[in-house]
Structure formats: structure tokens, C-alpha cells
């Protein structure tokens, strides 16, 4: 029995073990690698980074815990960028299970930023004045279209139940015209809805941060200039962290990701070579 025939009969659990080791080893030994920056991520970063201080930006948090490892690092880095650049983010949630993630991360990043700001003598950020979370409401397409006219038709209050008009930052915000851009973090089809309705009908500039599964479907939007930037999966998050010069979970995870990819390519090669050898033997 040749080595390839032995591989054909290998227990699949052995492969799981190898994948687990390929993930763990670089994480434990802190193996790092250079993260090359792709053009869609660079455009996204530049679009946010060049906005003037005080500009409002709408961030749609549309994912649940199942997509956290990919989208949470994007959300964290983006929020930090907003605080550092003096932008005013308004968080909106289209997935009910995304609300706690959106609130907790917002509070954590704001706390971390304020701690750093106090040390460096910079201005701290305050909820209601510098950032707001208007929470979740149902509605999908109807809501995305409705916000184009008046945000209060769907969101009378923020996630705490505070009326929008009593939040200083929200007083002059009524619809998409009051936002410089929409940064949508998407695990499902809400990204398509934003592009097809918010962009096409109301002209708001959109950047999509998507899970790797959905990212290929968003490239046609990028090519047709319906979106101005695209972050795809953990790779996109790692690139954004690199551009922000704040390497964190995504940057660390990309080494493990690459190791596993090499392993999978090896498995595919070995599997195919084994298959062709055994087929040749059977024929002869």
C-alpha cells in the first residue's frame, strides 16, 4: 500500500486535529506576518479618515455572535477611528441579536479611548454628544426607505429609550442627507438592501464590511461604484487594523488563517494525487 493510498484511508479526525494545531500554534507563539493592503480596504479607510471633524457617520451593526470573529474587529477599529478623528458615529442595528454586541463594544471602545485620551490630554467622548446608538427596530427594506425621509418615524428614541431630540448630537439629524457615509457591517442581506435602496434612491455613500461568505457577492457593487469600499472577512478586518496602526485580534488571527490555508491546499494536492494514482492502478 503506497503512502497516498494510506492517506485515502486516514481518519478524518486526524485532519481536524491538524487544523486545530495549525490554528493554535501561531496564536500561542505569536507568529506574525505582513498584512498587504488591498485597494477596496484602502479606499474604505481613506473615505473615513479624510472626513472633517464633527462629521456624522452612520454605522449599521447587522450581525450576531456567529459572525463576531470577522465583524467585531472591524467595528472596534472603526469606532476607534471615529473617536480619534472626532467623527460622530450613530449606530443602528438591523439584527435583534446584534444589539447587545453593538452596545457592549461601543461602551468598551469608548472607555478604552477615554482612558487613553485622559493620559494624552485629548478630549474624551461622551454618549449623546459624540456618539449615539439608536438600537434595533424591525422593518428591513421599508425602514431603510423610511429613514431616507425621517429617522424619527422609526426611531423615536435610542436604545435606552431616551428620545432622540433630547440627545444633543441627534437634534439636527433627520435622514441620510445628514450623514457623510454609511458603514454597514453585514452578516446577511442587509448590505444589498442598503445598496439597492439607501444608495440608489438617496445617494448616501456606502462602505460594506462583510463576512467572508458574503464578500464575493459585493464585488459587483464595488466595480459599479455603488459602494466606495469593501472589507471582506477577517482579512479585511486585519487590513483595517493595519491601516489604523492598531494590530489586534484580526491581525493575529490572519497568521493562523494562512497556516490553515496552506494545510488545506496540501490536503487537496495530496488527495488529488492519491486519487489519480489509485485510479491509474485500478485501470492497469
Amino acid at each position, binding site marked *: 500500500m503506497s503512502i497516498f493510498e494510506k492517506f485515502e484511508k486516514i481518519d478524518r479526525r486526524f485532519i481536524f486535529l491538524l487544523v486545530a494545531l495549525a490554528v493554535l500554534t501561531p496564536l500561542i507563539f*505569536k507568529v506574525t506576518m505582513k498584512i498587504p493592503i488591498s485597494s477596496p480596504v484602502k479606499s474604505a479607510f481613506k473615505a473615513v479618515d479624510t472626513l472633517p471633524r464633527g462629521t456624522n457617520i452612520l454605522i449599521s451593526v447587522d450581525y450576531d455572535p456567529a459572525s463576531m470573529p470577522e465583524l467585531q474587529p472591524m467595528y472596534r477599529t472603526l469606532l476607534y477611528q471615529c473617536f480619534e478623528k472626532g467623527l460622530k458615529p450613530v449606530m443602528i442595528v438591523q439584527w435583534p*441579536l446584534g444589539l447587545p454586541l453593538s452596545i457592549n463594544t461601543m461602551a468598551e471602545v469608548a472607555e478604552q479611548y477615554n482612558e487613553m485620551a485622559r493620559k494624552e490630554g485629548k478630549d474624551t467622548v461622551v454618549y449623546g454628544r459624540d456618539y449615539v446608538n439608536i438600537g434595533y427596530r424591525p422593518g428591513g427594506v421599508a425602514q431603510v426607505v423610511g429613514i431616507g425621509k425621517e429617522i424619527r418615524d422609526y426611531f423615536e428614541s435610542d436604545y435606552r429609550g431616551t428620545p432622540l431630540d433630547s440627545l444633543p448630537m441627534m437634534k439636527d439629524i433627520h435622514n441620510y442627507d445628514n450623514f457623510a457615509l454609511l458603514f454597514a457591517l453585514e452578516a446577511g442581506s442587509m448590505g444589498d438592501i442598503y445598496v439597492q435602496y439607501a444608495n440608489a434612491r438617496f445617494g448616501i455613500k456606502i462602505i460594506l464590511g462583510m463576512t467572508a461568505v458574503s464578500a464575493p457577492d459585493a464585488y459587483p457593487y464595488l466595480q459599479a461604484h455603488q459602494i466606495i469600499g469593501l472589507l471582506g472577512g477577517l482579512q479585511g478586518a486585519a487590513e483595517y487594523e493595519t491601516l489604523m496602526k492598531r494590530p489586534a485580534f484580526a491581525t493575529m488571527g490572519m497568521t493562523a488563517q494562512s497556516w490553515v490555508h496552506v494545510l488545506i491546499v496540501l490536503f487537496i494536492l495530496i488527495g488529488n494525487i492519491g486519487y489519480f494514482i489509485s485510479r491509474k492502478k485500478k485501470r492497469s
Partner: protein
Amino acid sequence: MHNFWVILGVWMAAFLTLAIFSFLYKDNPFYKFAEHLYVGTSAGYMLIYTYFLVIKPMLIDPISQEHQWILLIPAFFGVIMLTRWFPKIAWLSRWSIAFTVGIGTGLAITGSIQGLLVPQIKGTLIALHGWNGATLNNLLIIIGVIATLTYFYFSKEHRGFVGKTAKLGITYIMIAFGASFGYTVMARISLLIGRMYFLFHTWIPLIK
């Protein structure tokens, strides 16, 4: 005390993660327990969320506090959706379904044309002048669109020139599937990395 609950939460999450991972070895009661717990908890969570974020603030409060009686109409349509459980009056639910389908179709038609079809056609009408990387990309896009559309054109037999173009179309589709599969692998491995990071950073702090 706060610390105790945090630690308990981490241990519970670690146990449930390992219980789900145990399926990789073989199906077992721990996996079944974690799976059922997940389904039940998600359903319960959604129920509470729907009540406190939708039904109460958008229906009960406006009716009881602001007397917005008009909201009884959508409430009625919502309630008759439940008549599907009772075969004799199940036909009533069709009113709500008709309403939803009507709105959905209206929005979808405008969205698809204004937000997808027209911009995508515009995106394909791209310049082919000069000889550089961008022109080559544009050429590949144009050929890809024509060849793929030809593959889905069934009114003429796929033979001769049409057959060759359709074959090129299927090659483009296969490349797209390959890219999608690659991205899917990346997505799934990212989830594994996330869980591994939790287990060996938050639970057992091996990753510093």
C-alpha cells in the same frame, strides 16, 4: 460577586464550545444538549426582544398611552396571521400575506431596477481605450458578462460559436464558485480562530 458571574459565564461558554466541538469526534449527548440549549435560548431571546423592542413600544404603549387607535388595524392583520393554526378560518391569514407580498413586491421591483439592474448595466458599459491593466480588466468583465449570459440563453442550441461562448461562460462561473468557496473556507476558519482564541485566551490563558 461580579467577578464570580463573569467567571461562571466564561466556564459555561467554554463547556458549551467544547460540547459543540465534541461532534467532530462523534455525535454524543453533550453535543445534543448544547444544540438544543442554543435553539431554545435563541427562540426565548428573540421572543423577549420582539416584545420589548417591537410589540410594547410600537403597539401597546402608543395605544394605551397616546390612544393611537389606528394601530389596531396593523395589529388585527398581525393577529389574523395566527389563524393558520385553525384550518376553518385559516383563509383569513391570506389577507395579511397578500398585504406583505404586495408591499414586498412593490419595493423589490423598484429596488431591483433602480438599485441593481441599471447600475450594474452601467457598470458593464466601461471604456476599452488605451492598453493598460485597467483596459484588460474591463475587457475581461465585458467578455465575462456576455459569455455568462450566453450560457443562460436556452432559446438556441449551445453548438458552434454559441456553444464555445457558453463554455467560456461556465468557466467564468466556475472561477466565481472557486472564489466563493475560498472565501467560505476563510469565513469558517475565522470562526474556529475566534473560538480557539476564546478557549486559550479567556478560559485558559495560554495566548497572551
